[in-house]
């Protein structure tokens, strides 16, 4: 509905400039004359800092300039006439460089007359060519060349050296360091010729504006008073600072009128300069920060802008929103991948506005009739004029009478609504995806564990945010662009990011590897998965797991891929060869899923992944699945074998060490003798691990729960199993054996100079057997190192990402697939040299082969 309230104008352009005193006075509504704020009755003093013409902050009063209440009045500026000019601290560097580069007699820039025009033209050209930052550097080089000129080329007057002493005092370097007063500076600046200004890189302003003669007083709304619980009023830091300024200014005025000695005037003047400097910036190095009576530093204007908590990063770049919810998440494999289980309590708080039309009026009336306390109901009603009424039980009947097309009902969240779901840190666009609401009688958000990967979520207490999109456009975008089904392929690599996880993978692996069912059981299994396409089921006698899996695949699917144990071959929708494991259907790069997406589209992948996950889970449910200590029992024979490997390698290491000590060790090129020793020992120690792995792989029962999980890739690695019963192995720190601690030894239980494996972080025992005390220490060292690594990495990557994002965020693909920035400059003529979207490639490749295969009917 377009009403006069929501017609907005677009800001097209922002211009930056220094405000002239004239303009400050023009925009001012109050001339501040007194440091007093309130009179004895507690009302703002006229001409004081809280003058009601600058706006009001309390309800019940109206602004004396625009007669609006505190809610609508944005405030108005006032001004203070300073008794003497004051330097603007933000421009001190510029003031300094102008002083040094202009003549002290004729006030022209120290640049020969005949060259001025030429130089200005060159500046204009260079600014375009170099870009802002480089030009500034170039210009500052030009300026410092002017500083060295000692006689003016215009009037041949001699130039004295001027230096910035302290934060805002200029002195002549010659003689007894005479001070250059601000009045003198202002006089000089007033006389700088207009045509010289471009040389100083000053455009559109007068240099004397860099010195303040009139101070703008910000509106009251910008520095509002806080009323404490005790009824005491507490003024804002800025108001405090302004009181100081006004008071000092008044004193200076009086001194000037009375005719006090110049030395005293200068003192008061300096004080005023200090107050105004710290009002702008209270963190100037070399200037003691202004403080409260209790010792806290005052917050200046620049501190309000700067930093993470400043206005720019906290309020302008980052915004807070309404219509959002946050709770703990928990898994629910019964949900579809793009659904989210929303607690009833959340669904009754979040609303979605729905315009009332002739067609839906009855439906919306039903919702209003239910009210805010009965689901599905509605919480608010927006009338034609735009006013928002809260629906409460006692006025429902009145509202029901009133409601007519043109109204808007803010109804509860319903099943099927599209919302945005998000988990921080939002590192990529897959951290915010569209989901479809499913209201459930639970207390947490529930998601399918398959979408954990892109969110990087787990369920150990993670919380996530839900945003209910309000406008029609936003809801359409959520549904058509952000939905999980449109985010199945990662734009970073072109692989599938969503897939089966954990038990689902184990189940599919077990099913396709060796399981066999009776016909009835097989049908029962498929039915429990939710598979209803009965006509596809055509079983006879004993049914293999591969056949059952094939049923949920499309009929004409042809696929050749890889699993951990060789080729996976699917032809005409039948799994002929190989087993299904993490590589084909897992999250984060399932090749079969990528293939399905390419050839059958996202909807089918969503459906199939749902079937696959449930199938895996149901198989495990039927078959039973557990892990136990028994999985780690190794036969006595294997134990001996591993021990003998250990002994063999250890004697070899002893020999190497012996050779090193005798000086017989052959140096490997590029290594010192010590490095050679380390290299060889490390190699030998690693060989123990490799051989132990081989033996464990061969000897352990591959049908035990632990091995099934490791084999299918669902959870755990073979290495972990080796560590559990063969031996933990070498602990390495920064790519080397542990080699730090006490002098010449790692722990105090070793002899000095001991370089045997045990003394350098080799853990011989297995986790099952238990570690020796010193071995525990070695384990802790690497453990702590890992923790530190993550703790240090997070802020580093965060900063790197922020820099990359700000560097590139304005780049956009244009209609010709070129990449251009906000200035329209072409960065790439064709994105990636071929214009292909990574998310539409198969693992980054434009898949020619499958096109040829498909056209020729798999004859290749």
């Amino acid at each position, binding site marked *: 509905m377009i009403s006069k309230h929501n017609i907005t104008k677009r800001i097209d352009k*922002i211009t*930056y400039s220094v405000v002239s005193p004239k303009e400050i006075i023009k925009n001012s509504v109050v001339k501040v004359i007194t440091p007093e704020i309130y009179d004895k009755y507690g009302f703002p003093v006229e001409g004081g800092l809280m003058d009601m013409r600058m706006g009001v902050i309390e309800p019940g009063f109206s602004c004396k300039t625009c007669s609006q209440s505190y809610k609508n009045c944005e405030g108005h500026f006032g001004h203070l006439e300073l008794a003497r000019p004051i330097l603007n601290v933000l421009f001190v560097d510029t003031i300094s460089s102008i002083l040094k580069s202009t003549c002290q007699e004729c006030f022209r820039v120290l640049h020969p007359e005949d060259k001025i025009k030429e130089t200005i033209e060159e500046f204009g050209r260079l600014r375009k060519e170099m870009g802002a930052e480089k030009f500034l550097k170039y210009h500052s080089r030009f300026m410092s060349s002017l500083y060295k000129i000692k006689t003016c080329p215009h009037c041949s007057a001699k130039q004295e050296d001027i230096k910035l002493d302290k934060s805002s005092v200029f002195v002549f370097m010659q003689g007894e360091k005479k001070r250059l007063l601000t009045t003198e500076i202002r006089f000089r600046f007033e006389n700088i010729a207009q045509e010289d200004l471009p040389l100083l890189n000053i455009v559109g302003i007068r240099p004397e504006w860099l010195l303040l003669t009139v101070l703008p007083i910000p509106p009251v709304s910008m520095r509002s008073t806080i009323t404490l619980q005790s009824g005491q009023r507490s003024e804002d830091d800025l108001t405090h600072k302004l009181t100081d300024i006004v008071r000092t200014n008044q004193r200076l005025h009086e001194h000037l009128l009375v005719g006090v000695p110049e030395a005293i005037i200068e003192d008061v003047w300096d004080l005023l300069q200090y107050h105004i400097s710290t009002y702008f910036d209270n963190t100037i190095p070399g200037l003691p920060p202004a403080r409260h009576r209790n010792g806290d530093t005052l917050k200046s204007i620049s501190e309000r802008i700067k930093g993470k908590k400043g206005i720019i990063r906290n309020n302008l770049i980052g915004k807070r929103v309404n219509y959002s919810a946050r709770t703990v998440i928990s898994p629910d494999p019964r949900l579809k991948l793009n659904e989210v289980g929303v607690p009833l309590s959340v669904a009754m708080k979040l609303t979605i506005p729905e315009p009332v039309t002739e067609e839906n009026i009855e439906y919306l009336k039903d919702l209003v009739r239910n009210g805010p306390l009965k689901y599905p109901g509605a919480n608010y009603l927006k009338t034609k004029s735009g006013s928002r009424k809260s629906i409460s039980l006692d006025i429902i009947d009145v509202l029901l009478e009133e409601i007519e097309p043109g109204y808007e009902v803010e109804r509860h969240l319903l099943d099927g609504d599209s919302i945005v779901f998000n988990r921080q840190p939002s590192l990529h666009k897959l951290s915010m995806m569209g989901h479809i609401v499913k209201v459930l009688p639970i207390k947490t958000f529930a998601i399918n564990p398959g979408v954990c990967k892109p969110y990087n979520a787990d369920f150990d207490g993670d919380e996530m945010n839900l945003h209910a999109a309000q406008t029609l456009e936003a809801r359409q975008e959520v549904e058509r662009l952000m939905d999980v089904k449109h985010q199945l392929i990662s734009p970073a*690599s072109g692989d599938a990011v969503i897939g089966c996880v954990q038990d689902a993978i184990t189940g599919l692996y077990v099913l396709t590897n060796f399981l066999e069912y009776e016909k009835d059981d097989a049908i029962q299994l498929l039915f429990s998965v939710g598979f209803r396409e009965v006509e596809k089921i055509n079983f006879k006698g004993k049914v293999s797991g591969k056949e059952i899996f094939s049923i949920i695949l499309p009929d004409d699917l042809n696929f050749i891929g890889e699993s951990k144990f060789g080729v996976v071959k699917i032809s005409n929708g039948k799994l002929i060869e190989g087993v299904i494991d993490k590589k084909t259907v897992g999250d984060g790069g399932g090749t079969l899923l990528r293939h399905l997406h390419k050839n059958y589209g996202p909807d089918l992948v969503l459906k199939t992944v749902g079937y696959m996950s449930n199938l895996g889970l149901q198989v495990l449910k039927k078959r039973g699945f557990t892990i136990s200590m028994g999985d780690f029992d190794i036969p006595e024979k294997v134990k001996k074998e591993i021990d003998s490997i250990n002994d063999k390698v250890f004697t070899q290491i002893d020999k190497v060490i012996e050779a090193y000590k005798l000086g017989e060790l052959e140096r490997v090129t590029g290594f010192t003798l010590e490095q050679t020793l380390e290299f060889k020992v490390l190699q030998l120690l690693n060989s123990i691990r490799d051989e132990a792995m081989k033996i464990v792989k061969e000897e352990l029962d591959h049908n035990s729960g632990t091995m099934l999980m490791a084999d299918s890739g669902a959870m755990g690695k073979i290495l972990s199993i080796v560590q559990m019963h063969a031996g933990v192995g070498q602990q390495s720190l920064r790519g080397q054996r542990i080699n730090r601690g006490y002098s010449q030894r790692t722990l105090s239980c070793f002899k000095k100079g001991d370089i045997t494996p045990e003394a350098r972080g080799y853990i011989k025992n297995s986790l099952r057997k238990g570690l020796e005390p010193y071995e525990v220490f070695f384990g802790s060292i690497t453990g702590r190192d890992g923790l530190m690594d993550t703790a240090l990495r997070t802020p580093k990557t965060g900063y790197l990402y922020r*820099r990359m994002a700000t560097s590139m965020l*304005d780049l956009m693909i244009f209609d010709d697939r070129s990449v251009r920035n906000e200035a329209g400059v072409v960065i790439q003529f064709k994105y990636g040299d071929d*214009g292909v979207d990574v998310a539409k490639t198969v693992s*980054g490749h434009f898949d020619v082969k499958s096109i040829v295969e498909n056209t020729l009917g798999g004859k290749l």
Partner: protein
Amino acid sequence: MATKKEKVKKEKKEVIIENKVEEIVFKSKYKILNDFMEKNPDFPTYILIELDSILPPKTSDSDLKKILNNVVEEYENSLITPNEAIGVITAQSVGEPSTQMTLNTFHFAGVATQSVEGLPRLIEILDIKKTLEMPMMKLYLKEQLSEDKVKLVSSKIRETKLFDFVKKVDIDVEEKKVVIDLDLKEFKKVGVDPEALIGNLDKKIRKSSEFDGKTIVITGGSNDGLKDLMGMKEFALSSIVFGIKGIRDVSLIKENDEFVIVTKGIALKQIANISEIDISRVYCNDITEMYNSYGVEAARQTVIREIMEVVKSQGLSINERHVLLIADVMTYTGEPRGMTRYGIVADKLNVLTRASFETPLKHISGGALINEENVLTSITENVMTNQMVYVGTGVPKVSVKKSEN
């Protein structure tokens, strides 16, 4: 995959070699493919080359036409959607996996040369740091030589101090002399004449020293004490007598049946003087050095190669297209700029974009001095002012014709 880009000529830059790149012209054995290529010069050639290589031996023309049609259709479907905010996607695609990179890992490239890997290296590249933690060069030879000969070449490159040739040093306090016994065997290994080598000694020492073929005798001043003589000895031993200064170590690796010299330290200009080295294939991991010696395009290639190296060594899968865009953003002005507040961000058009990154006051007051005028085209400023951004779905506009009544 070289982008056509106007090379900005720098007058001061000393370009060692101008590499002539021959344009590879692809000719297929199928006439249909050749005709197609002629008609569509913009169609990516690599797709056609791949197609040509995997076609079954006896493909009929009608089949080929069908295939080609399907390839073109598929290609058009795979094109990226216009108005996509590709910069953000690229930043995310590289930024997100970088949280999984390791810190503090060193990786042995070659035998002796360590290289920094992981996150620290990525930051180094994106910042275009001037001093690298592990500067490295890869030098290829003009022709195949035997291992011994290659070793000789590499010893010419490595900086060698007098210390490496010394057998014994004596200090004679009474005579004020430092006597250095040289090990002649070592000279043979390097393949140089001792005489020539001594000539490379530092001037200060050369003046007061004598050489008789086997020993160097340095005579000190008459007032020198033991401390001065010791200092002189240290100075003499640590002076570089042979090789290129700054190359701290060299090692040999074999790459595709070819010896490659990997160095620790970079000296591209001096390398050009060594006749055995093929300077058209020299590679180093310092982007600034590559830019100074070979120009922007080389710098761009170095950025791509180095980032891909980090990505691969960390076992991540980031598509090359993202890396290409990063490299292009860093080099499109004609010289490499880092992603820092002094580099790319500093050159942003809009004051508020720069201010929102770092040091806001500097940018705002700087903008005021030159009366900057910003049209709100960038994302940041429109976000700040609560306006629709000009990217993605914010670009297309729909206007509705108002009905008569």
